[in-house]
């Protein structure tokens, strides 16, 4: 059995003696016997590390879709980007991994400065002046943004484009049960949000995705105007890789930018831990959820970093806090700073551009296949939706047999269907990253041709 406890039996005895106790069980003597567990946990005895490694190797082998066995065209908010060895090496340094929240800044400048740099990067990418130190993921960042809008407007109606990822909308609906927010989903037609179909004059928030989950790039001017007219917050859920080349949330006039930061150095990781991005205007800074790192001086006048505006947070403000978040995703934020440092200005631009080039090359090839058509005729960057002549899940299964993960079936994201997307069973979401070669793209098109023939 594994044993990470240092104490020798003799030491345990000595320590118990010091406490005047006979046995370890006596430490729990004040706990009513009725609630104490007798007979131990119903869990098998411990195994050695190599034994457990063998069990986990078994789990791994049963994942046919692992990227080292299958070429990944799945996206829908999680992308198979290059994470270079250097980013893994730096991001896994134990000082970053085994520290906790930097409560003692004098010995936590490493994490604090890295977060400060992360905040700067997210601020620049979002085009907004302030970013927090991370949230759990994109979906929960949306919830925090809605809460911010609720707080800022003291209103409760949230108009959310149906182009926002179905899971994110689902999460927003779940938490609205507590906050009392009303989530009004605004439908898409041809991939564009039909803002005209609703009256948004009482909006606490107008939320739009850029690009949306079908890959489509909408012109955000109308949405921005509606938010202005309602004095609600304009919330843009953006792809942070796209932010390397496309107009930023700030350029479109957003009050809040939220996003999923996984593409910046975090593995696909079966969906987590990911990284919730959050940036906003200075107007909202007192409502910003989670931690913020600020620059200051130490008692010798040296530049230092420290968590700041703490009065917003749950440990101080308790039931009046802007958010309940405590543990966040710092390690992913640090990793994102490292990955963005690796990419640099030109690298992020190249990644975004290559994604787009690959996606457009594939789009042209697959839409030429008989029976396959694009769900939307609008512009897209690196992801697009296809309507197939068969169930998308069946096509995925067929292509997987040849080593290609063809994408994500839209119906898997919204099992109850999506009012905005007719014939959802046949819709396939396809994403292309900078890793995909022309050979792989050609193979994809060929396999799809066979799968729908």
């Amino acid at each position, binding site marked *: 059995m594994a044993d990470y406890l240092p104490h020798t039996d003799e030491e345990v005895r000595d320590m118990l003696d010091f406490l005047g106790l006979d046995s370890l069980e006596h430490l*729990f003597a004040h706990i009513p016997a009725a609630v104490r567990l007798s007979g131990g946990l119903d869990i098998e005895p411990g195994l050695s590390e190599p034994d457990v490694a063998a069990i986990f190797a078994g789990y791994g082998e049963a994942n046919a879709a692992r990227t080292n066995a299958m070429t990944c065209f799945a996206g829908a908010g999680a992308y198979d980007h290059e994470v270079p060895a250097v980013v893994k090496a730096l991001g896994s340094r134990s000082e970053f991994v085994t520290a906790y929240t930097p409560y003692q800044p004098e010995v936590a400048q490493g994490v604090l400065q890295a977060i400060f740099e992360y905040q700067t990067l997210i601020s620049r990418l979002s085009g907004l002046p302030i970013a927090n130190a991370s949230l759990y993921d994109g979906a929960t960042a949306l919830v925090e943004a809605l809460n911010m809008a609720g707080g800022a407007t003291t209103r409760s109606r949230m108009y959310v484009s149906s182009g926002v990822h179905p899971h994110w909308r689902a999460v927003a609906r779940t938490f609205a049960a507590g906050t009392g927010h009303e989530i009004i989903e605004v439908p898409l037609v041809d991939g564009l949000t039909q803002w005209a179909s609703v009256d948004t004059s009482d909006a606490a928030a107008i939320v739009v995705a850029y690009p949306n989950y079908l890959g489509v790039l909408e012109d955000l001017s109308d949405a921005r105007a509606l938010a202005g007219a309602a004095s609600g917050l304009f919330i843009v859920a953006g792809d942070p890789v796209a932010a390397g080349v496309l107009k930023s949330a700030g350029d479109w006039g957003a009050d809040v930018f939220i996003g999923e930061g996984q593409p910046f150095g975090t593995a696909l990781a079966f969906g987590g831990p990911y990284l919730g991005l959050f940036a906003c205007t200075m107007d909202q800074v007192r409502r910003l959820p989670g931690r913020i790192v600020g620059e200051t001086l130490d008692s010798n006048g040296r530049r230092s970093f420290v968590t700041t505006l703490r009065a917003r947070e749950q440990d101080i403000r308790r039931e009046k806090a802007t958010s309940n978040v405590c543990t966040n995703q710092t390690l992913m934020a640090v990793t994102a700073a490292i990955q963005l440092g690796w990419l640099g200005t030109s690298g992020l631009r190249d990644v975004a551009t290559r994604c787009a080039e690959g996606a457009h090359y594939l789009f042209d090839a697959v839409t030429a296949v008989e029976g396959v058509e694009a769900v939307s005729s609008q512009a897209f960057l690196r992801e697009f939706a296809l309507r197939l002549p068969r169930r998308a899940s069946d096509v995925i299964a067929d292509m997987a047999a040849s080593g290609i993960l063809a994408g994500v079936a839209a119906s898997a994201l919204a099992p109850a269907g999506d009012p905005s997307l007719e014939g959802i069973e046949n819709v396939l979401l396809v994403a292309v990253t900078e890793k995909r070669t022309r050979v792989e793209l050609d193979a994809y098109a060929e396999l799809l041709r066979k799968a729908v023939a």
Partner: protein
Amino acid sequence: MAITGLPGGRAASVPLMGHETEPTMFELSVVGRSAAQLRTTGVPTRPLADMVGAAHVKREPVALADLSERDLVGHFTRLSHRQFSVDLGAYPLGSCTMKYNPKFCDAVAADPALNGVHPGAPSTLTQGWLELLVDLEEKLCAITGMAAATLQPAAGAAGELTGLLLMRAYHASRGEDRRRVIIPDSAHGTNPASVTLGGYEVTTVPSNERGLVDLEALRGALGPDVAGIMLTNPNTVGLFEEEITEIATAVHDAGGLLYYDGANLNAIVGVVRPGDMGFDIVHMNLHKTFATPHGGGGPGAGPVAVSVRLADFLPGPKATRLSDGTYDWVAPAKSIGRVHGWHGNAMVLARALAYIDVHGGDGLTRVAQHAVLNANWLRRRLADTLPAAYDRPCMHEAVLSATALKAATGVRGLDVAKALLDEGFHSPTVYFPLIVDEALMFEPTETESPQTLEALAQAVERIVARADTEADELHHAPHHTPVSRVDEARAARHLIATEDAATR
């Protein structure tokens, strides 16, 4: 000769060599550098505007930081040397369970067969992951004495809110509209914050002079509008709520549910199960009890386990073992919906399962025993130096108080905490729980040796001994760290949260 910008290869900020400040990555940036190397794809290039339309193209590219790989490595390696961590030394930060995290669990999580799996791949192609999640759920239920669990919540606070929404859904399903949730005054800040976000009002009940929930006050606070109570047991002052059965009965009799904040599970894992104490809903902080590393502030994972009557409400879809032995995603019948964009912090979950498997049932019990042994030993060892807030056996953490020290010398708990850094130890948690004056909350965890505890005790003794004569030096501690005491007030007064807000 125009060499501008700061050197990326100078190590004067590494405490090994000096105590200068480390430039930011933006200060180290030189336009035109890049470390990025992208795969050769053979895909034809195409102008961006042709692909997306000119209206979407950013006019001016965002300037990030442009670094050579060497400077990137230098910068972040140096930053790492400016950061304390469990791997460097004891981190007795109360309420945070900063135990040693086995490297084995990290290695498990680094396997591309697990972390290279797309979360949107169909269940037929991700059977290994689904099995892993089901196995973990079963083990967490065995540990908590519960019937079913969701693995989606990304941290403890997310688990709390999920639990409150479950409470809400449960009452709603019975046609009841309950508005209040009771929490003790010693509760962690996430509890009241979660209550508010769960749409409830907080009713605070006071602790009695023994540091426990005042049962009479609790009874007084109960009523038909009470949805439930949130407790952590041991509570945040490190004491076991001995009247837990009475509390449970009272709350249940009033139609309320009991929520267990599992942040303190390390004290009782394998010894007492929340379910056996009468709790209906339990969240666990896997990053505490189950030794998934804290990552400088996260990620964590906060699964929520519930009793049978709440199982149908759990978030979903959930990984489920089907009768044919295969696995699929299944939504509970009356699911409150998703609480995470995908399936939760999967790699954290995998680490926790590896930790559970290595320890086994027997090993987990020993974890709690040794954690409680260490805390009590330290409490007793320091009894004459810094007395415990409550003079009785504690569980896995010891809440001491510097009230007397402050009265006698002016040296505050914060000063003691900062001076400990100079002694080679991370500080304990200070000024929490709020109900204890000048609180210093030590949680040694089970992975520290008696020798380390003794050294920690001696360090505290040295500091306290200096308080009479060297109070001023202690007010300005720490002295050996790369930066000296940091001006927190200035940071808040004059907010600089990005490089661009700085006037450099």
